[in-house]
């Protein structure tokens, strides 16, 4: 009798915590959704723009290498088409496929330029890390399937708004309170030059990630099906060499699907020159201007 009374008290205690947590969870979710849609600067604004408001002819997707390497103004001036840089630091195909779904739910761009990195091809960190950006859009059409394809437990975990906005809530709050507009149509040039000798990377020790390659394949198939042109690029890196086979998985896929893949990973003009790089993987402002000018003629012939 005594034990059951004590046990009941304990269960009530657990229930009180759970109920309070659910209330906090819902309030947190509504607050984040409110702030997300009303942020006028920073990463939050850029993401919202890409997913809900963009209408450019050309959408450029990729990781930080896309964000820092491709100047949309140069492309707009050369091609006479509107262009937006949707590059996202640390992003891979799992996020970018989600972007593609949300964009094409609203309109069809004429061309997608995709800068490929190891985040799109190879096994690296846990793929759950890419979901941090996507979970915010969990309720949008097509996003739930992407999230749950990475991990089956995501379906259960995403019931919680606290989980959905995990860590991203800080950036959302910062962008809502103090919006900073430092991007130019999504492009963010970086200053500085490479001032050290980077350690040699071993490009051979890589294992292809089937989930990522599957999403690359889906991106190509759906783009073709909907009449959207797509081109894949590998932008320059500092410490590369001619004839490297780093992009072999994407090269094979593009050959199979008959889509263009332009490999500038080793670029004789830029690679090996510290003046054009801010670090081993990122071109600085000068380097990105040279690189963008290098590709616009090819883009023009592709589009014409």
């Amino acid at each position: 009798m005594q034990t059951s009374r004590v046990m009941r008290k304990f269960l009530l205690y657990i229930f009180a915590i759970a109920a309070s947590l659910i209330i906090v969870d819902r309030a947190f979710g509504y607050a984040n959704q409110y702030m997300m849609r009303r942020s006028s600067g920073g990463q939050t604004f850029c993401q919202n723009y890409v997913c809900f408001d963009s209408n450019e002819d050309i959408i450029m997707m990729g990781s930080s290498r896309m964000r820092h390497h491709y100047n949309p103004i140069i492309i707009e001036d050369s091609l006479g088409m509107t262009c937006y840089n949707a590059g996202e630091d640390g992003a891979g195909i799992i996020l970018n496929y989600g972007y593609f779904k949300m964009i094409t739910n609203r309109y069809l761009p004429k061309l997608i330029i995709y800068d490929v990195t190891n985040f799109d091809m190879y096994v690296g960190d846990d793929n759950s890390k890419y979901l941090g950006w996507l979970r915010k859009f969990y309720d949008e059409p097509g996003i739930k399937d992407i999230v749950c394809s990475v991990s089956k437990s995501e379906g259960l975990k995403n019931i919680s708004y606290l989980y959905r906005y995990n860590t991203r809530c800080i950036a959302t709050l910062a962008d809502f309170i103090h919006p900073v507009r430092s991007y130019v149509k999504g492009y963010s040039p970086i200053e500085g030059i490479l001032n050290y000798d980077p350690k040699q990377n071993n490009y051979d020790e890589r294992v292809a990630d089937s989930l990522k390659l599957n999403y690359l394949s889906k991106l190509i198939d759906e783009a073709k099906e909907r009449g959207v042109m797509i081109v894949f690029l590998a932008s320059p890196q500092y410490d590369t060499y001619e004839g490297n086979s780093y992009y072999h998985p994407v090269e094979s896929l593009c050959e199979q699907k008959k889509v263009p893949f332009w490999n500038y990973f080793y670029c004789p003009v830029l690679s090996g020159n510290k003046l054009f790089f801010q670090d081993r993987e990122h071109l600085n402002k000068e380097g990105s201007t040279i690189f963008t000018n290098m590709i616009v003629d090819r883009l023009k012939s592709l589009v014409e």
Partner: protein
Amino acid sequence: MPLIVFKYFNFIHYNVVDALNKLGVEMQLTGLNWAIPIGISFFTFQAIGYYLDCYHNRIKAEKNAIDYTLFVCFFPQIASGPISKATELLPQIKRKDIFIFSKAKDGIRMIVWGLFLKLVIADRLGMCVDTIYKGFEIYSGFTCFIGSVFYSLQIYCDFAGYTYLALGIARMFGYDLINNFRQPYFSISITDFWRRWHISLSRWLKDYIYIPLGGSRCSRIRNYWNIFITFLVSGIWHGANWTFIIWGIFHGVVQILEKQFNMQAYQGNRMSIRCIRIIITFLLVNFAWIFFRMPSIDDAMNYIEHMITTGGSFNMESTGLTSLFVLTISLAILLLRDILAELRSPIQSYLNNTVVSVAVMTTLLAFILSVGVLDNSTFIYANF
């Protein structure tokens, strides 16, 4: 024997082969590629402690095989401790349990606090530490120093987080286990540090290595030797690598010096002296952790050299603004809690109020879910 085979075979094999090769004897032996049983270092020490207590007639041998097995394999502590004594745990196992609400409530609080330490602080610090340690050559010396401090905090929060989870789960079932930590970074000497850090291991080493060797009831030189051997064993226990041995020896040597110059304790009342000693002790412990973190002595020495000789300010890109923001708040919470615990403040008794307790638990859980690192992670001490 199983501990030596599973944990140290490859280390011994590699060093023997390396030494033979250096002597001109070309030899290649077969390595061991077996999975190490989880918690082997911990439950082996727990079992050895029981055996030695029986041998020295401190306790009677347990006749009930099920009770003994439960003592050795008690699930909350099997992975990474704490290492319990038979005199503490066996009587609790034999007791007819009744459910106690206050213990269960305490258990929940400890579990939530453990999750906070692990997911909010340790794992987020771990992301920063990995970035800095992996590419330390490109960062300034000050950034590397901050990286080393981050690692000191990471290993504390990681291990303390695990310990609170183990204690909390056991407490919910009505069992009391020894707490491994007592605000270790408030230590005023390395000797004091080992009374506050991994307390169950320190106790085990004292009872079963240090005292049987003679402890302090012998000549000064013999006492110093006993301290040295005890911490050499501690280093070896932590891992099959020379870096752990160097780490253990460092702690042993510093304690010998403290004993020589009578610096183990501070009996005075001056807060300024106490603070200075806390800072110096932290810096010494922080320095030793570099060897703990690095895969080899060369890597550790390169890191230390780079830290000391390279100028420059803190590189924000090594951590990111979001992580810095989260860490500032969470470390402030940890510092406040540790200060209150150190001062034995009565404020903590307010947590006994159910409404306050529910509010605090809800806040902490919301904080964990919103800013905790919820991707797959492991515990550092699970490797030992």
